[in-house]
Structure formats: structure tokens, C-alpha cells
């Protein structure tokens, strides 16, 4: 029995290593100076078809130069970093304000057309951006919101995905609790605020985590709706990579992934709950 378990552990570690190798390379590469990057990665960027790129898990000549360059020398990076924050935080706040009551309404009440409306919400959740791209653009244009932060924030606030996730959590709250609250004289609003939200807090946390991961790396919306580059978020920083910037771009990649990574590590439990809420019948 012991031997079998050890074999399984070994296999697990191999799998985990495979998953982690790309990340480790990214991490290692970010500490390399420009010359080393060109030597190891350059063949891939410059079109020099003679040499091959090389594997690396540890830099040969570690240096902090790319990070220094990035953090101290590139104002663009900071501007975009704050742009990302200024987009993601309002989106999440807005989603809480809009999606939580909506999820409550769907979960705890029955009304005519609820099923139809909810199916519509699910369908909207699944539509890729490109389908609603045109319509979004036209509305934002009519509202004169194009090229402002609101062009990205507002449509995202009304996304139906958090409604769905939080709905699942609210559904799990026993009716008996609500009835007890009613007996104690709570009106619907109070029931919602003092029973629903506290009990549904894990769900709200889960939706927010998933939302953060999603909007921190969103690409299509800012690309389409924000023509003014000074408003671009961090996720759009990397597309224009040349060999000269290679070292810096590796360091940038690492810095960009730190916030979502932190969110992930702090709230992995909620993330798992959120994922399961989206997928499983309670």
C-alpha cells in the first residue's frame, strides 16, 4: 500500500511540474539581462532562423535590471497599472450593487416569466464578446461614452455572470430562515440585508474573485472601446513586443500576474466554491 501511494505522489509531482514549468521559465526569464534574453529567447522574436531558443529554469546571469527599468524608468507601466485598478475596482463594486439584489430576486421569489428571464440571463452569460460588440459600440457611441472609462466599466457592471453565481449561493439558503425572519417582523428588504447577504457572503466573495481574475486580464473591451492609449489597462501593455523590450516584457509579465496571483492565493477557497456553484446542483 505504501509503495502505491508513493508512486502516486511521484506521478502527481511530475504532473504539477509540467504545469508549473512555463511559469517557472517566465519567472526565471524575468531576472535575465538583455544579452541573456536575446541569447535564450531572441531567436523566437527576431526571426533569426539559425539558432534555437534554449531551455532555462534559472538564469545564468541573474539581474534585477529588467525590474528596475520597469519600475523606475517606465511611467507608461504605472499609468497602465492604475488604469487597470481604476477599471477593475469600479466594475466589481458596481457588480455587487447590481447583481446581488438581482440574484436574490431570482433565488427567493417566483414570478411570471422568471424561467424565461433567467434562461435569457444564462444565454447572455455565454455570448462571446464579439456577438454583442457592435451593439455595445453603438449604444456607447449614442451615450457619448466611447473613449471614456465608463465604456468598459458600465457594460461589465451589468454582466449576468455574477448574478448566476450568487444566485446559486442564495438558492442554498433554507426557506425556514426567511420565514423565521418574516415572523420576527422583517420586511423583504430587511430579510435581504440582514439574512440574505450575510449567508450569501461566500458566494459574493466567489463572484468577486472570479470577476477580478476575468477583468484584470480583459482584452477585447478596452481594445475596442478605448481608442485613447492613455486609458489602456495593463493587460494591453504587452502586445507590442520587440527584441529590445524582451527582457522588460518578461519582468512586466511577472508584475502583471502578481495581483491576480495574490487574489488567487488569498481566496482560493472562495474561488473553488464559486466555480462549483456555477457548475453543480446543490
Amino acid at each position, binding site marked *: 500500500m505504501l509503495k502505491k501511494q508513493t508512486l502516486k505522489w511521484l506521478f502527481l509531482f511530475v504532473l504539477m511540474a509540467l504545469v508549473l514549468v512555463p511559469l517557472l521559465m517566465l519567472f526565471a526569464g524575468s531576472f535575465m539581462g538583455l544579452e541573456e534574453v536575446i541569447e535564450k529567447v531572441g531567436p523566437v522574436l527576431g526571426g533569426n532562423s539559425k539558432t534555437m531558443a534554449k531551455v532555462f529554469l534559472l538564469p545564468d546571469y541573474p539581474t534585477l535590471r529588467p525590474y528596475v527599468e520597469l519600475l523606475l524608468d517606465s511611467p507608461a507601466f504605472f499609468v497602465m497599472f492604475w488604469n487597470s485598478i481604476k477599471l477593475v475596482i469600479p466594475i466589481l463594486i458596481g457588480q455587487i450593487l447590481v447583481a446581488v439584489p438581482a440574484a436574490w430576486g431570482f433565488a427567493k421569489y417566483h414570478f411570471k416569466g422568471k424561467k424565461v428571464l433567467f434562461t435569457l440571463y444564462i444565454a447572455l452569460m455565454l455570448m462571446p464578446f464579439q456577438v454583442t460588440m*457592435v451593439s*455595445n459600440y453603438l449604444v456607447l457611441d449614442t451615450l457619448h461614452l466611447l473613449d471614456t472609462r465608463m465604456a468598459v466599466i458600465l457594460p461589465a457592471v451589468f454582466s449576468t455572470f455574477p448574478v448566476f453565481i450568487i444566485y446559486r449561493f442564495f438558492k442554498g439558503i433554507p426557506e425556514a430562515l426567511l420565514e423565521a425572519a418574516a415572523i420576527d417582523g422583517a420586511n423583504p428588504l430587511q430579510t435581504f440585508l440582514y439574512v440574505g447577504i450575510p449567508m450569501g457572503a461566500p458566494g459574493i466573495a466567489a463572484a468577486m474573485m472570479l470577476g477580478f481574475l476575468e477583468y484584470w486580464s480583459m482584452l477585447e473591451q478596452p481594445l475596442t472601446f478605448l481608442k485613447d492609449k492613455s486609458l489602456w489597462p495593463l493587460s494591453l501593455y504587452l502586445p507590442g513586443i520587440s527584441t529590445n523590450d524582451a527582457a522588460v516584457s518578461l519582468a512586466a509579465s511577472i508584475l502583471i500576474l502578481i495581483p491576480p496571483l495574490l487574489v488567487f492565493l488569498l481566496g482560493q477557497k472562495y474561488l473553488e466554491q464559486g*466555480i462549483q456553484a456555477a457548475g453543480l446542483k446543490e
Partner: protein
Amino acid sequence: MKRLWRILRKKQNFICPNKTNGICLKKINGSMIPILFIAPSLIGVSIFVLIPFADVLKKSFFTSNGETFVWFHNYFTVLHNDAFRLAASNTVKFAAICIPLLVVISLLLALFLNTINKYRDMGKSVFLLPLAIPAASMVLIWKLFFHENGLINGWIEGLGGGSIPFMTSNAAFWVLIGSYLWKNMGYDMILWIGGLSSISLDLYEAASIDGADKVQQFFFITLPNLIGVLFMIFVLSLLNSFKVFREAYLVAGEYPHTSMYMLQHLFNNWFTALDIEKLSAGAVLMALVIFTLILILKRLWGEGD
């Protein structure tokens, strides 16, 4: 406040069967209250999604300046458009290949993790990690792996084979699939683990007693109980498969190799070219297909509410 609630409640006409302390315990059917809760979301969704989409629907029947009514002409144009056909077939091909692949691999992973006691949580964290990594961060690494002079070709050549030009050939397709699998394996795995944990262990015990071996237990207990989960995993994986456009766009730009050219690329390019006629017809078509797919899946798997 109390008067306001009473006025709102008066809208409905049912007889309250259970009155305790003067408060009605029956669920409030048909009253205005749920509408109030849903209102902000509904209003926003209408403004930003539903109404504009109706407008796009209308536009799809006109020429781009909106003056001439052209019936289904735009739809015909789109359906006969070579780029559309290529993109549509690629998108379908991608979904048809990578979703089953992902579903099966993540199931195997989940089953495997369930049999390990000690490092299970670590395994979960590691496999879930790629989900937290922004697509932009991984682009350089994918280029590194899959370029003509990249790492994988380096290994292949080291072993004596010929290098595969990943990004400029049909293999580009597999690059996309690889990055999709890496990113979403953990996601689906968590779903499977949740599904597996809801199967009562008593069932397995009873089956063992009746003489069923592990394989039989898998096929006759585990699988049937997972069908409900399968529907949602399928739907969510489908949703995530559309997001793969991000990686493709970042790695290969607006006009990648033909095998990677998906509907999102096409719409994006039509958008840049301001081709409203094709865009609106295409968007309506795609929405119809996805909507139908959801309805079919719902019917098939009977996903209750």
C-alpha cells in the same frame, strides 16, 4: 416605509392560507417585490445588451447606411463568405476537439486526485493556478515554446526529427488547444471534484458487497451520477473556449494562420473595416446558434432551476 410595502403587496390578489401574528407566511407570488430587486440589473442589461441587440437585428436587414431594406441579403452574403466559412468551421472544430479533451482529462485528474491523500490540496492549488495567470503574461512563453526556433522544436530536432513550424501551419491549431487545456484544466477539475464528492460513499460500499469490482463501480455508479455535472461542465468549457481568442490574438495578431482563424478574429476584422452589414448578420447568426445550443442542452440534460 410600512405603508409603501403594503401598497406594493396589495397588487396581488391571493388569499393568505397561513397567517401567524398577522404576517403572511406563504411565498409572495406575483408581487412587485422581486421586480424591485432585479430592476437595476434588468435595466442595465436592457440598455447595454438587449436594446442594442434588437437594433443590430434590425440593422442586419438593411444596407449599411440603413436606408434600403434588403431582406435576407446580408445573411446570404455572410453564409457564402469564404472567411466566414473558414472561421465558423475553425471555431466549431476547436470546440468539438478541445471540449471533450478537456472534460476527459480533467475528469481523470479529479479521479486521480481523489485517490491521493497527502498532497491533494497542493495538487488542487497547482492545477488551478494557470487560471489566475493573465493571458498577456503567458504570451511570451507560448511564443517561446511553439516558435519555429522555439523550445519544442529544439527538443524535436535534438531527437533527430524535423522541426514543426507551429505558428505558421496547421499545428497552430494545436497551440491554441494546448494553451486552452493548460489554463482550464484546473477549472474543470474542481467541478469534477465537487461532483464526485456528492456521490454517496454508501453506494460504493453496497456495490462492493454485491461483488462489483472497481471498474464496474466506476461505470455503473460514478459515471451515471456525474451526468448532471457534465452538462454544466460542458457549458462552462464552451464559454471558456471562446476566451481562447485572447491568447490567439496576443500571440498571432489579427490575421493568424488560417487554422487558427476563428469567428472572433473575423468579427474583429469586420469591425475594424466597419462592415456593418456583415457584422450584424454574423452576430445575429452566432447568437442564434449559441442560444439554440443552450436550449438543446437544457432539454437533453434537463437542467432544473
